[in-house]
């Protein structure tokens, strides 16, 4: 365990005109740590995720990231070229809808290989070998390597999206409702896979979800958001088993027991 965080967020706010997207968010994320951001629709969790991943610009605050050379850089003071490079090498972003994160009209192999080619890999055989390896890791049969994701089921597409993101060995992955829109049985498989990959690779991850079961299974820590504010923050099992804030208690008590 290192003593330096990977990601530092301080005094972070985003306004849409007079409306609050999220306000005064501060936290640190360490290597290998999974943080879940939970809350209902409109609570600001997706705004926060989009800002943290530099897909949106915040109104105030800073987000610093520890680069591979150990130096902290303020994400919003980087050039766009550097940010985009970071996003396709050291970061991953798993969208709720796999079609947003995949190229639906190129083969599964090329989807996985794209990041490698983007960072300069020019050996077809090696790219294909790596793609094959990753398809296996996300439990997609390798004889589907030349098929387009259009012909894949929802769960397979999501697993392909994960492989596409992880192929460059990122240190930080953002996930927006990674299991949203999937059948329950497919969700379970995906969660288990994600959990295994996150553990094996020592990934840090920020996962936005409204599903507390996802948060429990994947995350170490949890932030509960309401109306743009972080209202409760702590160890995931503590927040779920002993929720302190009225809204968190409402959330936890709303889970259907099977």
């Amino acid at each position, binding site marked *: 365990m290192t003593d330096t965080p990977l990601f530092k967020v301080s005094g972070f706010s985003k306004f849409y005109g007079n409306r609050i997207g999220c306000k005064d968010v501060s936290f640190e994320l360490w290597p290998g740590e999974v943080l879940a951001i939970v809350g209902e629709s409109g609570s600001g969790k997706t705004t926060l995720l989009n800002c943290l991943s530099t897909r949106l610009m915040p109104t105030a605050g800073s987000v610093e990231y520890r680069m591979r050379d150990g130096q902290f850089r303020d994400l919003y003071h980087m050039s766009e070229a550097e940010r985009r490079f970071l996003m396709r090498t050291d970061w991953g972003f798993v969208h709720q809808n796999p079609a947003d994160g995949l190229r639906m*009209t190129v083969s599964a192999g090329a989807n996985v290989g*794209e990041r*490698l080619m983007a960072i300069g890999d020019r050996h077809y055989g090696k790219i294909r070998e790596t793609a094959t390896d990753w398809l296996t890791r996300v439990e997609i049969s390798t004889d589907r390597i030349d098929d387009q994701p259009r012909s894949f089921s929802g769960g397979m597409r999501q697993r392909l999206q994960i492989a596409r993101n992880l192929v460059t060995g990122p240190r930080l992955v953002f996930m927006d409702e990674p299991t949203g829109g999937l059948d329950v049985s497919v969700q379970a498989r995906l969660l288990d896979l994600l959990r295994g990959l996150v553990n094996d690779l020592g990934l840090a991850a920020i996962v936005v979800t409204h599903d507390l079961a996802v948060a429990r299974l994947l995350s170490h820590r949890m932030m509960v958001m309401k109306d743009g504010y972080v209202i409760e923050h702590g160890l995931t099992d503590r927040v779920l088993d002993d929720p302190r804030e009225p809204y968190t208690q409402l959330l936890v008590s709303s889970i259907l027991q099977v």
Partner: protein
Amino acid sequence: MTELASYNFAYLDEQTKRMIRRAILKAIAIPGYQVPFASREMPMPYGWGTGGVQVTASIIGPDDVLKVIDQGADDTTNAVSIRAFFQKVADVAVTTHTQDATIIQTRHRIPEQTLREGQVLVYQVPIPEPLRFLEPRETETRKMHALEEYGLMHVKLYEDIARHGRISTTYAYPVKVASRYVMDPSPTPKFDNPKMHMYEALQLFGAGREKRIYAVPPYTEVVSLDFEDHPFEIQTFSQNCALCNAHGVYLDEVVLDDKGGRMFVCSDTDNCEDRRAHGHVGEMLAQDPPLGKEAAE
């Protein structure tokens, strides 16, 4: 009853020519970069070379000698009509001889004979954006060019190999210009790609519908994209030209009858005629009557 208003020299008004020349100068200054320009309506449909015609009209002067080719040939509809257009609106000399021309407007070929310094090759371009088919958002492709993010280009080549076992793109094969911009060389066969590298003549590209001009200045590095284990290769032909016996040139297949008879002839008609004038004879002309394609050697 006064005389009809006459066209300005080379059809376009002088303001338009200045605008296009500025775009051309910018394109030459940034090899491979697509410069937007205010493409005009031309008296021919899009797809007939409106981009190339505007570029030619902007650079042509009364002393120029123009050659126009379509798929290498001087005598096809597109070439003939564009040549006639400039004879009419600019009253310039025209030629079919590559060596005699100062400006060569081309659709889909680069002449077999090497051009020299001072000559200009003007390409007609249908789709200037090489990234278009994989990334339809123009805002995104421009950003990718700006940030030199060209991984996607190799995704296309990867797909080729995955599907066909080799890079099957045979025309509009993407190139990198001066180690910076990835460029679509227009739908020329990839056979012509190596000619673009360190070319003595100035190469200008005009896309009328897409409103883009780009350029490769003389003596510029032009490299075809490829993989280490699937290097770039040009097409090869086992036959020689049936008319002039040329080897190592780009050949067109011509169907002779409905019994499978066919011949391969030079795509570059001027080069073919020139060779025949110098006494080269292909198998089709050597035999009389010219039938029976598998005749004895």
